[in-house]
């Protein structure tokens, strides 16, 4: 499990990449990724390309990110989801809160 973050577009976009299992053990690391970016991006992208699985705590963490990014005004997209990850996001109807690709 590892999480890395990088900014682009002059700091207007923060890209967080998840690798491996995305569950409660990544709580601290995930939070650090967006809290310590030192920027105020207006667009967040969570890249699930290397993520194998996520559990309900991960869904909670995504909600925390959304809250951090401005709640209902937040622009957070979740990209490169594999079928398992997509299924979990769909069951919880997270497409109503995030842009999911």
């Amino acid at each position, binding site marked *: 499990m590892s999480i890395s973050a990088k900014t682009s577009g002059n700091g207007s976009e923060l890209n967080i990449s998840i690798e491996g299992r995305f569950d409660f053990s990544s709580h601290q690391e995930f939070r650090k990724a967006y809290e310590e970016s030192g920027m105020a991006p207006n667009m967040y992208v969570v890249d699930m390309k290397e993520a194998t699985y996520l559990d309900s705590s991960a869904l909670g963490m995504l909600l925390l990110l959304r*809250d951090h990014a401005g709640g209902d005004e937040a622009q957070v997209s979740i990209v490169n989801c594999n079928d398992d990850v997509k299924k979990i996001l769909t069951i919880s109807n997270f497409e109503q809160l995030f842009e999911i690709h």
Partner: protein
Amino acid sequence: MDTVEPLKILIADDSNSDRLLLKAIVQNQGHEVVVAADGLETIEVYTREKPDIILLDALMPRMDGFEAAERIKAMSGEDFIPIIFLTSLKEADSLALCLEAGGDDFLTKPYNSVILKAKINAFNRMLKMHHTLQQQRDQIIVNNEHLIQEQEVAKRVFDKVAHAGCLHVKNINYSLSPLAVFNGDVLLAAVKPSGKIAVLLGDFTGHGLAAAIGAMPLAQTFYSMNAKGFGMKEILQEINSKLKDILPVGVFCCAGMMDLDLREKTVEVWNGGLPDCFLYRQSDLSYEVLPSCHLPLGVLSPKDFSCETQMLEMLDGDSLFMWSDGIIEATNPAGEMFGEQRLKTVFEEHRSAETLFKELEGRVNSFIGGSQRDDDLSVVEVVMVDKEEFEVENVLSNHKSYQGPMDWGMSYDVRPDTLREFNPLPVLLQILMDIPGLRSHSGEIYTVMSELYSNALDHGVLDLDSSMKSSTKGFAEYYQLRSKRLGELQEGYIRITMDYRGDDSNGLLTVTVQDSGKGFDISMQTDNDYKLDGYSGRGLPLLKSICNSVEYKGGGNEVEVKFQWSYNDSRKLA
């Protein structure tokens, strides 16, 4: 100069000169010294003085250093007492023997004060580390005991709040770990005054106490609102806004809820974040998949929350299955998950509705096999059964000597904005349930009130034709048209008038419901009740079977019923 922390050091040596020499060196380094001249004395002094470090000669009379070391190590238990052997032995075997006997190090004669000092310091550091570890371990033990105790208290409180409700009834089968609340799983069931059975399966994010906190308000809201006769949508709305209010962002509850109507043979379902629920049809052993259509409870603010439910027909023997993701994620020793496909296979291969639940449980358990059983396998099956049989098996009534309000009347008008958004029955029912004599008839009273109200609303104010409901297709259309007309409603009213007179042994309730609909020609009111416009077959005969009288008035848009109860005859006077 480094300052030395004074330690108490025991020096055991049978040679007076060696002992004195060593004592001088050690004292010179700032430590307190106690001495012994043989093995037995060493043990005595150790017991009395509790030194920090022992410098022990290997060869001594009465008892040698090896034996003394072994005994002292055994006596010290989990305390760490460093023993440094003093020896002139050069052979590797003997040195090894010192360590085997429990020695921690050795010092060869003649003594080098620099090395001795370094060794004493090193052991002092180890002593401190050992001490810290011990303290931390003890702290962890205390904390853990605390945590377990807290969980036990929390569980006792929770069990009271979320008492199993009516999970024991015959038509509910379930599997739930006794500590499920700490896995975040909650299963609740209640019988409403109307006789409907409400069941909720919830799965909170996270584990432990954090997952358990939300279960309390959830259970309390579920039970109190069901007891008051609120509908599923109102209950979901209330639970959602309560959880949204109190839970931190990121903690929410995936949940499925159903209201089973034994009389109408329907089930109302809402799924927010649980895996697909299955509705199993006994007649052709098929199943219908009810996917999650909503965000979990506690995520959206009340204005965005959708409590849109699905209404399905369900015949006796059909059953509805709900589960948390635990069953799909149940893992075998090879690390494979049980998965959706295996779940479907169980349903597709199985040939008898009655044994399906056991079969499912068995398959999952044999799949997990030797691997550690996950405790969060929560599954519930609710079977549609005959209403009369259910009521006979589960009698619910209680008498109290309090008489309640004895002589009163009231009128309650419900206008479009209220008709659209609000269900007035719980409020009215609460007033009626303040009369102890009526309380044991709560189911019948609820049936009468809801039958009168929904008839006035559907066929009076909204002018819907009940014959639509006779086909499955029409059934869906009926509910669509109903919600459309209700949404567009601009004018109309329902006026409910209640009048009660009674004492502690009997009483008479008169309810009149008038609506703004077009009514019908009441001169047509004949024995052939079934043909009466407005009531779909069972409605009017049902009212007549419960009430002492049912009478249409005015332009047919007004109906008056009388319900009499008596203490001696727990049902009614003819």
